[in-house]
Structure formats: C-alpha cells, structure tokens
C-alpha cells in the first residue's frame, strides 16, 4: 500500500473499525514507514483530544426526557379527568417557540402516568427538572 492510501485509512485504523485486510495492510506499511508512523501518532493524539473535548460539552438536561416521555403519549390530554383536578394537581401549559404544547412533568396517579403542568415553563428557562 502507498503512503497516500495508508494515510487515508489511518483515522479508522485509530478508531479500530478497518476490515482485517485493511488493518493488516496499514500495520505492515507502518512498520516500515516512519512518516506514516508519525501520522498515526498524531492522529491518535488528535482522536484523544477530540474525545476529551466532546466529553466536556454540557450534559443533556433531564427536562428533555420529561418532554419525550410525555410527548410519546404515556397519557393523552383527554385522559385527565375530574378526579385529577380533585386531587389538586396544578395545571399549566408550556408552549415552545415552535408553538407545540409540551408537558413539563408527570406522575403516577391511580396507576396511570399523568402529566403535571407547571404554570409556565419558558423555553429559555434552563432550570433543572
């Protein structure tokens, strides 16, 4: 294999996803080519830097799961009945800037998943849920 072909494959040699044949060809070349060895070392270093940098990005807020769980319809709006109101749940509605109503949280009530609306959850409110 030529240097150019080897270099094109090095990123995936580093991430361990080349086919057996390709990986063997790269390994064989690298054993005898100092330039490509250097390229391998720097690519490996880069991959570590990328992983660390991306791992440091902000965590996914828990509120997203609340929204997904409610939106996928564990309970439909229509299943809220008078009983829920009698139990004193406070209701509200969150409307995103894209105009879709979203529930902000939910609880088990009489064996059913029931959304509890907070009065208003602004989209820019980044409070933890």
């Amino acid at each position, binding site marked *: 294999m030529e240097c150019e072909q080897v*270099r*094109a*494959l090095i*990123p*995936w040699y*580093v*991430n*361990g*996803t*080349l086919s057996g044949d390709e990986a063997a060809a790269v390994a064989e070349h690298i054993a005898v080519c100092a330039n490509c060895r250097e390229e391998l070392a*720097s*690519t490996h270093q*880069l*991959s570590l*830097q*990328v*992983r*660390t*940098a*991306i791992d*440091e*990005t*902000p*965590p*996914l*807020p828990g*509120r*997203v*799961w609340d*929204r*997904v*769980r409610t*939106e*996928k319809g*564990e309970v439909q709006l229509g299943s809220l009945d008078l009983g829920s109101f009698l139990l004193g749940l406070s209701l509200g509605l969150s409307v*995103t800037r*894209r105009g879709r109503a979203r529930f902000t949280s939910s609880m088990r009530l009489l064996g059913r998943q029931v959304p509890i609306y907070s009065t208003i959850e602004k*989209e*820019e409110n980044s409070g933890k849920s």
Partner: protein
Amino acid sequence: MAHERDLLARVARKDDASFQRLYEEFAKRVFRYALTLLRDQHLAEEVVQETMITVWDKASTYVGSSRVSTWIFGIARHKSYDILKKEKKGGRMDEIASVIDDPAPAIERQGHVRTAIDNLPPDQREIIFLTFYENLPYKAIADLLDIPEGTVKSRMYYAKKNLAEALS
C-alpha cells in the same frame, strides 16, 4: 449491537422500559451529535426530543440492514437540518443564520480543542465527530451521509489539516 437491536425490537412493540433504556443509551450521543452540527444547546435539545419521539413512533420500520446507531443518527441528522430550515423560515434568521457556517460563537469556558472543532466547516466537524467520538467505520459514515467513501476520506483529510493548523 445485537443488544441494541433487541432493545429496538422491544421498543417497536411499545415497551416503555426498553424505550427508556434506549433513551439512556442514545439521547446523550444524539445530543452531542446535534450540538456538533448546530452548536446551539436549545436546538440540540429539540433534536434529541424529536429524534427519540421518531424512534418511538417508527421503531417498527427499522429493517436491520444498518447499525441501530447509524439509523438513529440518520434520524437526528434529518431533524437537525429540518429544525434549521424551520428556524430560518420562522424569521429567526438573524439569530441563527450563523448557527451552522460562521465561526463558532465565543463560548466561555470552552476549551481550545472544542473551539477548533466548532470552527471547522459543518461537514468536516461532522466527520470528526462520527469517526473519533462515535467510532464509526468510514463505510457507515458514507451510508449515513449518503456520500461516496472517497468523499468521507477527503473530508477527513481537510478536517485533520484544519485542526492541526488551529491547534498548532
């Protein structure tokens, strides 16, 4: 991978607990992918939400010819571009016109490597993410992005070159 397929099969049968496990497995990864593409926390959250809802609704349409992760990332990718289009149409152009192409917004506390990644053109930072963070084979990336394998390799070549310059 077999484990992920089993999980998705149970999600297709509307098993809530399996869906929660699938969410735990993928939501954060989808979030990071969307964040890499869009560089906006709130839009990335929206992508996660819409992607996972689509996974719930469409799990039964997964045919098993690709990895589960590639299938989910494919959905996330479409959602990212959909959201971007809608945001642009919705008159929030000024605010987010720059989301994809312009230099990364200066986020304090952000490390120099992250800044260097964010400053790459979108197609290059996507390749970097999928290769070094998600450890996808170049063939899977070519499928996901619907581009030739040679294009995956050449994008990587330029991405590495740009990163090396930025980090030197």
